[in-house]
């Protein structure tokens, strides 16, 4: 029986010889029996060079769901569904009071606005644990936050605010990776100054009369931060994807999109009119097969070559905590002459020794990524998105992006916040605050993940990713975990269906450079307690490297030692 503390798998681009000096690697799997984490790490380092593509160990693992837990989860959902039908029946026959809003009398003969079944899940499952989401806060979303207390007397159908405020809750849910969500300090002062001078709104689009000098300043700064020729910024991160992908690809092009891409990427791809093919999450063989097929077979009926092939990937996937295998993606892109669109919403600022994102993390050249996209919401404490790339690309986007022509330009104080925080990260403000934050975040991530794994929880994702999903599986535990943690003054985010597959509900922690070691220790103590209370420590330290079966079975042999 082999044990794998945090398994690892890196695919080699060529079929390598089966034996390696220590006899512990077969077909790319690292198998180490009873090795300590440190020893395993060094073995991994030697083995997973992948012909020099990876300069550092890539430790990503998704432990398999234990069979008993999976069965119990399905049973749990089954019971909930039965009760759901029962309650719907009672509500229909007016035995139980109906709380939700109904259609107007005058419009009762219209075709109903919602399908009954569409809302079954919302009415009967989501409503029961609705108090775990949309928790209103009334302070800056930093490391500690004040949550407004609310009560429900009708089982979450409606909420009343008691007027109390739960103070100083440790915030493990906000995307505040570098700790720039502050209401004091140089960023806030600069933003206040710009607010006085420029006001809040702009009332015009970039192409008409809404282009301010602040926007051009920001764009130059973003371009130098990323190491690209030019950049363009937008007022909303979601809209950056949904409005620019259609400007770049159209009918006759092919989009290869990761299975677990964000809704904005999916929407942008759909709106463009191009053909979309999905490859398995972070699975490079799946991607290579799709690329090969695309080149060999061309467009579906006419067999003409595709006008463009665009690969859509994200830097960090926010539900899995996994990091894209960028060196391999770039190698594939170069081999098959496709374009790469990298969405760094979560990874910009949070990864890499200088905070320049996933390209920096792997030590690659930013010029290899054709379109670098990201948002300012997470690591910069503002809002909006950017696209960076070659000057031709950005000039094209300035005239053809939907956002430049029809949407209002970003607000000046928000732009100033981005400028100040970016300068701080780059070290241009004369302090080492940026560097310290990046290092603090990396340390926090390593420490938190290691402690959680040692406690026995199942944690998904890459060792270096600041997004830490902790598996809950059972529907009842989703609600219980969220509520128990709030009782202990820790605010967490729990996610279930449909954001995740139905049996894989999880709690997701977002670490921040603003979290001190004491805060993390407090949080870990409470998580430990709640984990014991709810029996969440499922891990048996038997990891499967990929989330699902590898695409091509012949490459990976499943042999048991």
């Amino acid at each position, binding site marked *: 029986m082999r044990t794998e503390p945090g398994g690892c798998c890196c695919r080699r681009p060529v079929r390598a010889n089966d034996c390696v000096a220590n006899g512990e690697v077969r077909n790319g799997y690292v198998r180490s029996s009873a090795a300590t984490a440190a020893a395993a790490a060094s073995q991994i380092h030697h083995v997973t060079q992948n012909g020099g593509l990876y300069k550092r160990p890539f430790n990503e693992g998704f432990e398999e769901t234990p069979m008993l837990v999976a069965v119990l989860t399905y049973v749990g959902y089954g019971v909930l569904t039965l009760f759901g039908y029962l309650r719907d029946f009672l509500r229909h026959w007016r035995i139980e009071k109906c709380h939700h809003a109904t259609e107007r009398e005058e419009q009762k003969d219209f075709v109903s*606005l919602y399908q009954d079944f569409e809302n079954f899940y919302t009415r009967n499952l989501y409503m029961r644990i609705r108090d775990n989401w949309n928790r209103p806060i009334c302070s800056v979303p930093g490391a500690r936050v004040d949550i407004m207390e609310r009560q429900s007397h009708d089982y979450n159908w409606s909420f009343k605010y008691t007027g109390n405020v739960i103070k100083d809750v440790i915030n493990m849910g906000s995307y505040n990776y570098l700790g720039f969500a502050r209401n004091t300090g140089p960023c806030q002062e600069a933003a206040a100054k710009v607010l006085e001078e420029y006001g809040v709104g702009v009332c015009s689009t970039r192409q008409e009369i809404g282009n301010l000098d602040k926007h051009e300043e920001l764009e130059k700064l973003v371009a130098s931060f990323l190491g690209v020729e030019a950049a363009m910024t937008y007022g909303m991160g*979601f809209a950056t994807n949904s409005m620019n992908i259609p400007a770049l690809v159209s009918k006759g092009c092919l989009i290869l999109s990761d299975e677990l891409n964000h809704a904005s990427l999916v929407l942008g791809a759909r709106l463009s009119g191009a053909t979309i093919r999905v490859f398995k999450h972070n699975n490079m063989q799946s991607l290579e097969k799709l690329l090969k097929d695309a080149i060999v077979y061309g467009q579906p009926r006419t067999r003409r070559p595709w006008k463009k092939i665009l690969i859509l990937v994200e830097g960090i996937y926010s539900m899995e905590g996994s990091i894209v295998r960028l060196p391999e993606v770039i190698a594939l892109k170069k081999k098959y002459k496709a374009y790469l669109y990298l969405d760094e919403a979560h990874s910009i600022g949070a990864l890499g020794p200088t905070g320049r994102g996933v390209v920096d993390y792997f030590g690659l050249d930013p010029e290899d990524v054709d379109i670098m996209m990201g948002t300012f919401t997470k690591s910069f404490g503002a809002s909006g998105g950017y696209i960076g790339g070659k000057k031709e690309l950005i000039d094209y986007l300035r005239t053809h992006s939907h956002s430049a022509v029809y949407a209002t330009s970003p607000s000046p104080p928000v732009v100033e*916040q981005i400028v100040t925080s970016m300068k701080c990260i780059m070290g241009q403000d004369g302090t080492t605050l940026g560097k310290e934050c990046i290092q603090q975040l990396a340390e926090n991530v390593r420490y938190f993940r290691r402690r959680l794994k040692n406690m026995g929880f199942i944690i998904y994702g890459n060792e270096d990713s600041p997004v830490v999903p902790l598996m809950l599986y059972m529907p009842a535990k989703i609600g219980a975990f969220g509520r128990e943690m709030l009782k202990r003054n820790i605010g967490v985010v729990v996610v279930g269906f449909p954001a995740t597959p139905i049996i894989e509900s999880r709690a997701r922690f977002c670490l921040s450079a603003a979290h001190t070691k004491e805060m993390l220790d407090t949080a870990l103590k409470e998580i430990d307690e709640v984990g014991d209370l709810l029996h969440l420590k499922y891990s048996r330290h038997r990891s499967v490297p990929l989330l699902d079966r590898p695409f091509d079975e012949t490459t990976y042999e499943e042999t048991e030692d």
Partner: protein
Amino acid sequence: MFFSPSLVPPSHNIVVNGKECINFASFNFLGLLDNPRLKAAALASLKKCGVGTCGPRGFYGTFDVHLDLEDRLAKFMKTEEAIIYSYGFATIASAIPAYSKRGDIVFVDKAACFAIQKGLQASRSDIKLFNHNDMDDLQRLLKEQEIEDQKNPRKARVTRRFIVVEGLYMNTGTICPLPELVKLKYRYKARIFLEESLSFGVLGEHGRGVTEHFGIDIDDIDLISANMENSLASIGGFCCGRSFVIDHQRLSGQGYCFSASLPPLLAAAAIEALNIMEENPGIFAVLKEKCKRIHKALQGISGLKVVGESISPAFHLQLEESTGCRERDVKLLQEIVTQCMDRGIALTLARYLEKEEKYLPPPSIRVVVTVEQTEEELEKAATTISKVAQTVLL
């Protein structure tokens, strides 16, 4: 490409290309861009909550300011509930696909703005376009659909119908005939989605938009969507209506669930703008007066015609006779705009994505009237445009 950037923020007086001009190009209808009360409210919020919200509404991104703003907007518009978005364009573009799915039918005006077109595209529904503001054409389409329904009653029972119109059209400056639309709604059982980005804070006695303008019960309109980037001089958008309709967007509005929430300082500024609107209901009448005045003054300029209603604050100046080629038209109009700017009146060409629009409007100059412009300035604008048009076009 873009204009050389404004060194002074684009409120009443702006500096474009190094020249000082009076601003007739930003949608700052109520003149609130420079208002010190808005700035103070935003500053207070900045000092309390910082700039960004660091999360979507579901994950600790809901602030008390957001709840306040939604409450105030619902009260102001006299509806049950309101929901706010962090981007004006995304508001209607996320609202339509939340309700209308594949297989549903949407009747939309040909002059609908780009955001509506994108919302319709994302919804994958059947789109039926009717001629701009032509109720007979719409009735024809509705009748045809009725005949189709009788052929296949089972399918008709599950096909939803929607009519999407704008209160004040951005592309033509005209007002939609809402009373007739409401009659058609009840007769053919279609729901109305009303986009009020330009008419919110402009039409109606208290600025409540086109429903107040025509005196229609707000419950007759299923969904009103507007952006806060024009009259409210902030950023973002909102939808309001009955709870039965609006609550659905909290779980299925893509731009709401999957995107970070509106920065609290922008929400605070919007609340303050609403306060100002409620305190001085007289400004709407003043704005209407100014619109009528400049509309009259711009009539009869040789070579240019005014497109838009007399009470619309954002209207277009198009060439009376097109040269036949769109590029040449655009060049002529651009020349007029540049010369007007040289003489101190800032105007802009109405911008469109020529290849993407379904029904591309003819090239035009956009003229925007705000309450801050004095009568002399309006006169000056009218005479300048008239003179420049004469030199360029004749």
